[in-house]
């Protein structure tokens, strides 16, 4: 088991405006080859959807959203950068404890 890295993975926040857009996201969710990880699943239009997108799928997903006029913003630009910081903070804190 090697450490799984998330270099270039992004977390997008997607804002759906109607049921039709929710259905589009559910369709996206069903596309297994994209390997999307929904941190918050598509449900009702009022709630934003947060989804982690592997680096290889980022362009495809953004193109899908843009072609359907679905609004999104980037919550985490590069997940690995945040994970590295978390790891560093933990190591630092453990060092201090010692």
């Amino acid at each position, binding site marked *: 088991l090697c450490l799984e890295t998330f270099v270039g993975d992004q977390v997008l926040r997607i804002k759906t405006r109607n049921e039709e857009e929710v259905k589009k996201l559910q369709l996206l969710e069903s596309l297994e080859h994209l390997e999307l990880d929904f941190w918050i699943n598509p449900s009702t239009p009022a709630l934003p959807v947060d989804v982690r997108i592997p680096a290889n799928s980022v362009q495809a997903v953004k193109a899908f959203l843009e072609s359907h006029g679905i609004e999104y913003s980037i919550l985490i630009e590069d997940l690995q950068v945040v994970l590295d910081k*978390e790891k560093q903070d933990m190591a630092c804190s453990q060092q201090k404890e010692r």
Partner: protein
Amino acid sequence: SSNSFNYGTYHSLDSIYAELDHLASEYSNIVSKLQIGKSYEKRPLYVLKFSTGGSNRPAIWIDAGIHSREWVTQASAVWIAKKIASDYGKDLSITSLLNKMDIFLLPVTNPDGYVFTHTTNRMWRKTRSKNQGSPCVGVDPNRNWDAGFGGPGASSNPCSDSYRGPSANSEVEVKSVVNFIKNHGNIQAFLTFHSYSQLLMYPYGYKCTEPADYAELDALGRAAASSIRSLYGTTFTVGSICSTIYQASGGSIDWSYDYGIKYSFAFELRDTGRYGFLLPASQIIPTAEETWLGLKKIMEHVRDNP
């Protein structure tokens, strides 16, 4: 001593388990450690029992970390354990509660997943059980309870993060909790911690109809959310699982409610998505502090409305 434990950082499973021992030793008059089972990879499932005596008293169940990547929940649970133990005899509310009831706290419901998030994949959510006929590992333990099992909002695909498992209670982590609750026979509240989204939810998730105790649960949920907000202004949305997030079957509080435990609530702790599962350690203590206020509000209501 638990005084040397840093509650404001994330810890390995070994370190959390060592801290449970410290707490049980330091507060041996009210805290004891029980093992309610073993995980798929044979790690112990430890519960802290807070009790001032009596036999089979009414009790409150609290668990955290059923989804392993939700690190703030396990961390908050350990902080809350210390809070309950150290407040007994000092805080009137918790003292009167423990003079009447017991509290059971399971800080790491999914230890295999938790270890996996530390060693291999920080984003792991499920258990680590092998799925026959599939290369994919793990079951979503919060889709595995016997409550509308296999219905909407749970996947039948072993590779999905919300895979429900081959059958209800197939996961030993779930089955161990179910057995414990059933064997105890006098659990009055079932409270579970998740993150993130800042929600306080009651049943149902597997269906979109209101529970029989809707009015009381909704009012209590709102009172708890108001207590949470009173500390740092953190706002929690209150409602049924189906109305606040989405229809999801096989969830723990649906099972506990249908089993007869009226006060069944699921907390989704901080934040609302700025960091999500990667909540900085600097927010652990504020999160635990505000959660404690909401938890206390619910526990007081349970104490006063047996």
